[in-house]
């Protein structure tokens, strides 16, 4: 179960998407989100879906790695699906029972919302699947650096993110080990009522927190030992390079987003 979380798990392979500048990919994801949230007609959804499939193909990441990221949010998805299905008012009534009313508009909204969520998770997990955590945070730092002047601590934010990402697999491994160790001591996490189950988590959570603090402490000391004192005057071993393919990809994203926005505006003023 613990291994199902794709977030922060880099899939190492050679692909055009892997070779791209992380800044391009981060901006691309932002554009992608804008596209997803402006899409409203079936055709716009289809366009976004084609784009998603295309990018997945280009990434050379096996599809099951991308869909694996969906498993943990199945509950949230079902929740939004049900909520949209029953809470949407208006439209033609399809089904009525007691206080539950399902309208065609409700079905449409629910399906669209679900599709949007699936694409959102798949598209964004592609960012972490094709970009190593170091490259990712490097990209974020550079993207945020113009905001330094207004007091945004871009280096510190990037450093905190890279540490957090780095610690996800470590803490997952640690959790796995603690669960096994307590299981070996006869702990039972699967039976009992809710309160008993929550109580059964204590032998896992306490060592996990203690371990996280211990590791944080050790890391802080190790960083200080190497004279780390923030981003001032720090240079990178690997300079980011914005190449032609990055420019092309970014242009494509901008055009696509602009097209979506144009469609929306046209629809709003009533031309379409």
């Amino acid at each position, binding site marked *: 179960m613990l291994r199902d979380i794709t977030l922060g798990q880099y*899939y*190492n*392979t050679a692909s055009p998407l892997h070779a791209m500048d992380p800044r391009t990919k981060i901006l691309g994801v932002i554009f992608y989100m804008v596209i997803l949230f402006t899409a409203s007609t079936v055709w716009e959804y289809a366009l976004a879906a084609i784009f998603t499939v295309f990018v997945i193909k280009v990434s050379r990441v096996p599809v099951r790695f991308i869909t694996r990221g969906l498993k943990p949010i199945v509950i949230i998805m079902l929740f939004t699906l049900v909520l949209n299905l029953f809470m949407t008012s208006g439209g033609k009534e399809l089904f009525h029972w007691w206080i539950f009313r399902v309208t065609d508009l409700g079905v449409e909204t629910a399906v669209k919302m679900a599709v949007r969520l699936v694409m959102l998770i798949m598209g964004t997990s592609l960012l972490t699947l094709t970009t190593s955590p170091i490259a990712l945070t490097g990209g974020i730092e550079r993207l945020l650096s113009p905001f330094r002047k207004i007091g945004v601590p871009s280096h510190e934010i990037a450093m905190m993110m890279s540490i957090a990402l780095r610690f996800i697999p470590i803490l997952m491994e*640690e959790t796995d*080990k*603690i669960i*096994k*160790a*307590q*299981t*070996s*001591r*006869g*702990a*039972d996490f699967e039976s009992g009522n809710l309160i008993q189950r929550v109580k059964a988590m*204590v*032998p896992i959570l*306490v*060592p996990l927190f*203690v*371990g996280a603090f211990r590791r944080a402490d050790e890391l802080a000391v190790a960083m200080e030992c190497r004279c780390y004192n923030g981003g001032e005057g720090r240079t990178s071993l690997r300079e980011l390079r914005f190449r032609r393919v990055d420019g092309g990809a970014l242009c494509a994203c901008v055009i696509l987003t602009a097209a979506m926005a144009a469609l929306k505006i046209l629809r709003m003023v009533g031309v379409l």
Partner: protein
Amino acid sequence: MIELKNITYTYNPGEPSARVALNDVSLTLADGDFVGLIGHTGSGKSTLVQIIAGLLPPLGGTASVDGTDFSEYKAAAKELRKKVGLVFQYPEHQLFEETVYKDIAFGPKNQKLTEDEIDLRVREAARRVRLEDGLLEKSPFDLSGGQKRRVAIAGVVAMKPEILILDEPTAGLDPSGRDELLGMLKELHGDWCKTIVLVSHSMEDIARAAGTAAVMNGGRLVMNGPVEEIFSRGDELRSMGLNTPQITRIVDGLIKAGLPLEKGIFTVEAAADSIEKLVRSKR
């Protein structure tokens, strides 16, 4: 008695990061054994002990417990967990209770023992791992590293497992702490736990405590037999990046240099005896 046959295990099967951890491993742990499980880092030792302890379903192979064969590991795992107590690497990282007493009592409590029996077990286990009585009411997080480790080991020992497995229990301990721990295990063996498996890559530890040794290399069990026999195959061990105990290498060197010492010495005490005998006979 536990018998494992043709056990295989692969991490992340079907992914680019797939790694074979165990390749057709068969191992029998008989009552009364004190087995040293030796192997290089990544040789599959830790995976194997987790399978023995019923915590990790293998991809292939069968297990039998006390002569009962289990076709499915799931059924075997229940029996294995009852019989086997596993002390993980750096077990002190798994302490969680408010007091040492409560932490040691966690296992026996899960075994649904009576209050009196739990109290008896906790005190006996604490005595066995040489924790002073005064420490029982302290918070485990206030103890020293060595004490924490002993509390964690006591937590498993208190369950009185038939088979006690310890994964690198001496890692990070100073020499005196290591001697004490190994002495403690020898005392536990036979009278408290029928069988002990000591996982280590320290040949000195194995030589000091174990009766038989099993050597793992690249996911396979490559040697299995009495400690004397294993340590007489120094060249093979060296080819796997392992070695014989330091003292064995010294004695072998002395023999090569022409001193008529006995062969098959792997503790400092035995070497001292042998040299003393030689010196006396010369006089």
